[in-house]
């Protein structure tokens, strides 16, 4: 099954490479990986989406922990958490589709971030499932380009 893993790492060059290389060297699935600085500039947070049966996931977590540059590894999958992904998608635009695109964008609480005569770029934020649905729904209009950030996630609540 799908797992969402949050990893605090040392904010040093090569850390992302160490993590990504470990996944490929051990044959683990790596669906998405995102990384950014935290409130502490010496620490970055990685959010990793991976798939595997329990035995594999337990190895993934242990191998992540084993890397010297990882500070804390948390499997958020079964814990209260908020998960978000950003989608930027450029669509073909014509007079006949304009209205429908705007309407659909509203359904997904999307934002128009760029518009030209023949193209429109929309930003959608949500869970990866929501992003998948949005992509499916917009596909008939003709997707010119799209970019996904990969999931970022954080614990919900006080703990």
């Amino acid at each position, binding site marked *: 099954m799908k797992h969402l893993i949050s990893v605090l790492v*040392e904010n040093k060059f090569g850390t992302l490479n160490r993590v990504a290389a*470990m996944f490929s060297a051990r044959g683990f699935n790596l669906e998405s990986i995102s990384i950014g600085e935290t409130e502490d500039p010496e620490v970055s947070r990685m959010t990793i989406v991976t798939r595997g049966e329990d035995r594999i996931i337990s*190895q993934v977590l242990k191998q992540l*922990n*084993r890397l*010297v540059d990882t500070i804390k590894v948390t499997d958020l999958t079964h814990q209260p958490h908020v998960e978000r992904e950003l989608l930027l998608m450029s669509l073909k635009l014509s007079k006949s589709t304009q209205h429908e695109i705007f309407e659909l964008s509203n359904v997904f609480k999307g934002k128009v971030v760029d518009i030209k005569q023949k193209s429109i770029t929309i930003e959608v934020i949500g869970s990866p499932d929501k992003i998948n649905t949005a992509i499916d729904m917009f596909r008939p209009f003709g997707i010119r380009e799209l970019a996904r950030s990969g999931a970022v996630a954080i614990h919900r609540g006080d703990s």
Partner: protein
Amino acid sequence: MHQPGQKLNGSEIFFECLRREHVDYIFGYPGGSLLKVYETLHDVEDIKHILVRHEQGATHMAEGYARATGRPGVVLVTSGPGATNTVTGIANAYMDSTPMVVFTGQVPSTLIGNDAFQEADIVGITRPITKHNFLVKDVRDLASTIRKAFYLATTGRPGPVLVDMPKDVLAAECVFEWPESVDIRGFKPTFKCHANQVSKAAKMISKAKRPLLYVGGGVVTAGASEALLKLAAEQQIPVTMTLQGLGAFPGDHPLSMGMLGMHGTFWANQAVSNCDLLIAVGARFDDRVTGKIDTFATQALKIHNDIDPTNVDKNVKVDLPVVGDSKDFVESLLNELPKTKEDRSAWLAEIEAWRRQCPLDYTVEKDSLKTEFVIDEISRQTKGHAVIVTDVGQHQMWTSQYYKFTEPRSIVTSGGLGTMGFGLPATIGAAFGVTDRPVITICGDGGLMMNIQELVTAVYHKLPIKIFLMNNSYLGMVRQWQELFHKEKYSFTDLEASNPDFVKVAEAFGCRATSADNPEAARKAISDALAYNDGPMLVDFRVVRKDMVFPMVPAGGSISDMLLARLNPKTMV
């Protein structure tokens, strides 16, 4: 010796750090990026630099030194090709969890990334084969990085750590400061085993009718041998060892069952297949040990103690994991467990019956020489008291079967990676560290040729090592598989037409050498070599060419189902 607070350049700091880490030997080779270091080294007297003839040799020497002494091996090489030549040795140390610190020179930091002369991204290249590695970009970080490197290499599950040092960093100056302690927030190995898990293990052991200890290199690393001996004796539990675990338990003890796995003893593998409790200590359920996983120790509950949690449940699902130091584990068990009241004599008798059913055996003929005999004879003449370094292949497996290792740190061998060419340089490294016991290579003709240049190093330093060459002029283990499983197509394994005269080669290097092709001559050559201590001595044992290592579990087969002798290949599927 400089004191903290003094202004020093990077190269001076480098040696100050090594002093504080109690380094006595560096295995190295100079080059452009390291000129400053070698300039400083010229006046260093308390740290001995051993000049190798190939950087791979340096890494294997460092590993031989580390395995024989328990102290980290230190390597110093230049950038680019110097660094890339260390890759095999680093990978070898990583697979066998050997503490080692490799220092590489690097092009000036301003040139990094420019495809400069002798530039290689050695930090990138060695990321997956080091425990950790560092590129030092500022001389002010050099001392703390070296401190961390030694700490990481030697703490928890040991392993190789690489420190890449650009040329300008080695020349730049700063005030030398030595951090008294190390704190790496992402590296906190668990030493103390969880008390609940130990209690559960103790209960499982006291209930077991047919328990078996399966011990690996972790026992040697942790220094748990003495406690293990006590545990096995008090509880009457037989002990089988992995290749790296040989010597962790005395091979001549009645409870010792020798090695298990692919070329393990028949009785050890039968015991694994029939035990009701398997207690793995500092071992990692390697595929060479387990054979086919589905049929491995199916009747047993399994306890697994390892300091590295990633080893637990990696290959084999266990019933009770106990993460922590193996010495702590065994000693905690000793505290928990009263002397056993279980009568385990029936179990031990069963094992004894297997031992008698298929003992390790070979024939001796007057005018031909078998490797098994030579190794048996080495074991007899040294009384199992030597440091034995092997290369990789048939001779290595025969060594595991016929040499009776009686104490820890007696075998130095390339287990995980299986690196041919390891033997000779690792022997040299071991001989710098160990001077009170004979240090012996048992190697083959294929492997010896892979790092034969290091004979120079042994001769120059007059190291009294014994190079016992089991020369069958074949890549014997590959040949064995070709015969058994590949239709007797002996592709590129016959070296007879191309091998040199090893006695002459050795003599050209200035090494004393002789040969032997029958048991009587072999016996004499071994005793002569053991008596000669003015330098290295090579004995070219002209052994029978087509001998095979048995018993054997074919790759992917079940360990309960061993080949006990040569089968007619034509009857095989």
